């Protein structure tokens, strides 16, 4: 299994541009998550999904949108990028079993200038 994959690895955006961060998992996990990690900080939850067609806001959803049309994919959309969205973005997934262990992708480093 490839696990959780994210593209792109790096991206520079100008203020006001839009982009989609891609996330795919091949573990047939129902739960998927998007986090952002600012320098020297922990992870903050942006959005999550408990299954295809179901998404919900996390702690910091403003400026982002998500969709979950399939079990495998959970793209994160940034509309009208702002410098405050400069961060490293991590996607994660987990199974519906008893444990809450989340498996993380390698991250996307985004800079908005």
């Amino acid at each position: 299994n490839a696990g959780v994959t994210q593209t792109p690895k790096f991206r520079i955006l100008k203020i006001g541009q839009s982009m989609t961060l891609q996330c795919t998992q091949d573990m047939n996990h129902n739960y998927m998550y998007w986090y952002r990690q600012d320098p020297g900080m922990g992870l903050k939850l942006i959005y999550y999904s408990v299954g295809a067609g179901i998404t919900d806001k996390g702690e910091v959803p403003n400026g982002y949108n998500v969709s979950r049309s399939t079990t495998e994919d959970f793209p994160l959309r940034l509309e009208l990028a702002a410098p405050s969205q400069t961060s490293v973005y991590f996607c994660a997934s987990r199974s519906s079993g008893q444990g809450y262990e989340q498996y993380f992708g390698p991250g996307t480093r985004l800079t908005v200038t």
Partner: protein
Amino acid sequence: GENVGLHLPTLSVQEGDNSIINCAYSNSASDYFIWYKQESGKGPQFIIDIRSNMDKRQGQRVTVLLNKTVKHLSLQIAATQPGDSAVYFCAENWDSGGSQGNLIFGKGTKLSVKP
């Protein structure tokens, strides 16, 4: 809201020594805790987890201790190696009324291992 925090932001240890990374939590209703390791430029990796009905759990070279009385969690790494150098995060299970299994992460402790 209630958050997970860490006592020490940085920890420097000698290779071969034992490391102890601490974490305080404030949500007494949390029933699951997990430790992640994050190497530079990579995503977090699972190390070990523990449920609130336990006070100790051991893995390979790692032990997690949970003290619910003082709301304290610690990660012990035995015979620390240079490859253990990373940032370590604790996280607690937080769900907003449903069993979503969402995690709240602390800020992390940077562990540096001196050869």
